[in-house]
């Protein structure tokens, strides 16, 4: 291996010929402006003094010439781009894969495995030859190309600086697909794929084209992790289950602290054997919605201090939500369509009562008045009126109308979503005066057919015709309308994630009718707007570990947790080899020769020289006069004054 200095663009050295005009300029006399003055006597005296007392004045001009020639030399050398040959891991077309999985957050090497990997890649970039190109792929949950086949070192450094480790496992298959594509796009003979990782790669990865090299990161396997945390409802109250695994080489005593909200509920010491696991069960917990958290710590060490190499799996969360369902009371002379629908809709417990008897004392979530007179005071719960036959406290009923054709459905209303009224025929309907708290969802020429709104702290919906007076129950519009109305009046639980999510998993949130804005706050408080689909709202940004909050119209709908719970990531033992295709790739020493360019230093020296030249030029003009007769007279005069 030959190490030395050479030039990338030696043609620029011809610019050294610029020294000739500089020398000529110095030799030419200056053109001077003629000025007549009374006498040159004093000027001659002055110049004689100056030359006598400051011999460097003669030198100054020559010194400046020398500096300018030196400046020219430095600039010409910089342009010729000299470089030093340095040992490096690889040259040619490089495809670098940077492992950004959760285990790369381990701090067994300082400051973290990920930062050490970045430093290694930075060295590769510094030594990149001018004819080499590098692509940089960040391998996280969704691998991404940070830089694509570029030789611009600044671009590569910027891309590297922006890379961050994730808290989720890495998708190596997708990363290998990206790398393979990038390799096949270039010259295979010269392509090298360099993988910076701690080795948690799956064993069934496809082979990669080109020469594969592996740079292992990490030194220790010392990690204790919470592998599971969940809550299950039982007869006496929910039960908490936790599992703690030790991936290190020594037995560890750990303290498991369980908190409900912010309050410490339990702290127990477990002795987890090396390579093994221990379980913890807490029964008979309070049957109220709460966020539970589990934290590992070492005995004798204060809480929050790191006690193993990977802190991400030392904390876990679980959210307990008691099961609920909406109770519905139907007051109707008998309506098979209605009863069937209410039984079919999920999350409802329908009950029937006779319209003539007084209302039961147990409260219900929704009351349905079907073709009855509601003379009693209306309960303070959600209400659904079908075919109201008399005035109520909150609206007035007029006569019957039959002009029910040309029904218009309100557009952009969540309650009319997916509602197609075009095939519905209605014989007759009651003319209900639209109260100011209600909006019309479906209307005909003769009057409103479906209304809904909020009044007196309750949600109310009104269908102004008897279901049996129409063919609505036989249309597709019927289940759509009923689902929308029930969802508005008695929503089921918006989402369900009893065991929490893993990073990258998605969550479906069903908004209740009337929930126009769904937002999810991540553990750092950042608000995500979720994308809507036909089935509901799909949340995909579960990258951070912790507790998420789902809100709608500023009311909290609930929480869910995201935990690592990944044995492959928690087992941080660095691998000496990785499997790529059928080959085993071991760690690569530095055997190749890279190029370290030195022109930035030359340019810096040229700039410093420019400053020096400027200083010398100005300094020469303001040298103090020599001591002696003149100085004596001057001092005498200033003393006399």
């Amino acid at each position, binding site marked *: 291996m030959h190490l030395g200095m050479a030039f990338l663009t030696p043609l620029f050295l011809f610019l050294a010929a610029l020294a000739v005009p500089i020398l000529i300029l110095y030799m030419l006399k*200056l*053109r*001077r*402006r*003629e*000025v*007549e*003055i*009374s*006498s*040159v*006597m*004093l*000027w*001659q*005296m*002055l*110049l004689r*003094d*100056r030359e006598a007392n400051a011999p460097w004045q003669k030198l100054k001009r020559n010194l400046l010439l020398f500096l300018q020639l030196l400046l020219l030399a430095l600039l010409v050398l910089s342009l010729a781009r000299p470089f030093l040959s340095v040992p490096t891991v690889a040259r040619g077309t490089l495809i670098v894969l940077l492992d950004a999985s959760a285990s790369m957050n381990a701090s067994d090497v300082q400051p973290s495995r990920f930062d050490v990997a970045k430093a290694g890649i930075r060295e590769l970039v510094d030594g990149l030859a001018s004819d080499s190109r590098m692509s940089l792929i960040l391998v996280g949950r969704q691998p991404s190309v940070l830089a694509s086949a570029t030789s611009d070192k600044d671009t590569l450094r910027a891309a590297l600086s922006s890379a961050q480790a994730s808290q989720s496992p890495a998708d190596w298959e997708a990363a290998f697909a990206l790398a393979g594509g990038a390799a096949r796009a270039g010259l295979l003979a010269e392509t090298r794929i360099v993988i910076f990782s701690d080795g948690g790669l799956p064993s069934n990865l496809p082979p990669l084209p080109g020469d594969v090299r592996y740079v292992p990161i990490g030194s220790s396997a010392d990690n204790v992790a919470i592998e599971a945390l969940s809550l299950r409802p039982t007869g006496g109250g929910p039960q908490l289950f936790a599992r703690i695994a030790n991936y290190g080489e020594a037995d560890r005593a750990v303290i498991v602290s369980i908190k409900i909200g912010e309050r410490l509920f339990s702290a127990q010491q477990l002795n987890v054997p090396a390579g093994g696991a221990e379980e913890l069960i807490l029964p008979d917990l309070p049957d109220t919605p709460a966020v539970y958290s589990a934290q590992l710590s070492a005995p004798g060490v204060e809480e929050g201090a790191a006690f193993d190499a990977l802190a991400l799996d030392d904390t876990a969360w679980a959210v307990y939500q008691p099961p609920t369902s909406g109770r519905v009371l139907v007051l109707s002379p008998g309506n098979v369509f209605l009863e069937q629908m209410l039984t079919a809709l999920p999350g409802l417990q329908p009950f029937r009562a006779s319209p003539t008897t007084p209302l039961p004392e147990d409260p219900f979530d929704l009351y349905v008045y079907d073709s009855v007179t509601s003379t009693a005071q209306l309960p303070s719960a959600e209400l659904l009126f079908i075919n109201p036959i008399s005035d109520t406290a909150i609206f007035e009923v007029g006569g019957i109308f039959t002009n029910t054709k040309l029904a218009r459905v309100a557009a952009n209303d969540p309650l009319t979503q997916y509602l197609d009224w075009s095939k519905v025929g209605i014989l007759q309907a009651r003319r209900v005066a639209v109260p100011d708290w209600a909006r019309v969802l479906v209307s005909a020429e003769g009057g409103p057919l479906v209304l809904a709104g909020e009044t007196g702290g309750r949600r109310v919906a009104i269908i102004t015709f008897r279901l049996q007076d129409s063919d609505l129950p036989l249309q597709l519009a019927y289940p759509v309308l009923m689902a929308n109305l029930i969802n508005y009046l008695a929503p089921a639980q918006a989402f369900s994630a009893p065991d929490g999510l893993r990073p990258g998993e998605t969550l479906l949130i069903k908004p209740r009718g009337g929930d126009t804005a769904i937002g999810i706050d991540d553990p750092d408080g950042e608000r995500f707007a979720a994308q809507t689909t036909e089935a509901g709202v799909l949340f995909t940004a579960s990258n951070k570990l912790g507790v998420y909050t789902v809100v709608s119209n500023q009311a909290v709908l609930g929480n869910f947790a995201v935990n690592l719970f990944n044995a492959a990531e928690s087992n941080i033992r660095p691998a000496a080899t990785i499997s790529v295709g059928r080959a085993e790739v071991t760690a690569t020493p530095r055997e190749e020769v890279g190029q370290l360019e030195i022109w930035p230093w030359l340019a810096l020296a040229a700039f410093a020289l420019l400053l020096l030249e400027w200083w010398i030029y100005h300094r*020469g*003009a*303001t*040298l103090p*006069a020599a001591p002696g007769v*003149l100085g004596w*007279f*001057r001092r*005498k*005069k200033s003393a006399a004054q």
Partner: protein
Amino acid sequence: MLFDESTLRKLERLALVAAQVRAGVMKGERRSTKRGTSIEFADYRDYVRGDDLRRVDWNVYARLERPFIKLLEEEEDLAVHILLDASRSMDFGEGENHKFRYAQRLAAALGYIALAAGDRLTLTILQDSAPVAQYGPARGRGHTLRLIRFIEEQEPRGATELDAALRSYALSAKRPGLIFLISDLFAPDGYQDGVAQFQGRGYEVTLLHVLAPEELDPQLAGDLRLIDAETGAPQDITLDGGLRDRYRQRVQAWRDEIEAHCLKRHINYLPISTQTAWDELVLYQLRRRGLLK
């Protein structure tokens, strides 16, 4: 015009002031150290008992039948010599700061005062290596206008050989007294020997060193070729702020040198910038220095 109405009025005022000053001076106080042997008749006064009979002018007595005593110049009046440098280097300066115009006004002022005080005035123009023109000796106010016209007619030209010119004048002048030399002293061959000649003959010398503001603080910059107005000699120079500072210091040092030289030899020296109002110079500065008596 060099002497307009206001200038003449200023001169009048100066003369009055000077006369008042003179009146207080006792006769004989300014007697030079060397008594001249040439008895130049100057004036008469009445014979008083006790006077030396040899000093009676018998011709006058014969005519007027009254005895009068002849007075010698030494006892009665003062010889004032004004030497005005009219070399080419004096032709420098802008407007009121023009050196020769200033020197002319200065010479006129001093001459006027001398005439008004009854002194014996001689005003001489110096050019090249010798005096080239002279007014006087003259006494009395009657000469004022002619003196002023004489001064106005002069033009600065020729080179400065001050030493030679001064020596030449010293040899020819007869009556020692006060000498006022008005010059810029841009004399390569110096002035010291010539001045020493005057002192050897008993004169009291006053150097009025006149310079223009542009000569004290030149507002020039860049790559220049300076041309000497008298000799045409060139001097290449690259003038920046630093060099200009050094020139200012050099001018001051030069004046300091001259002042020190004069101090040692009891020569009165006054460095003047033509920016100073000339009448104020005469009225206050000269008096303060004791040069105007």
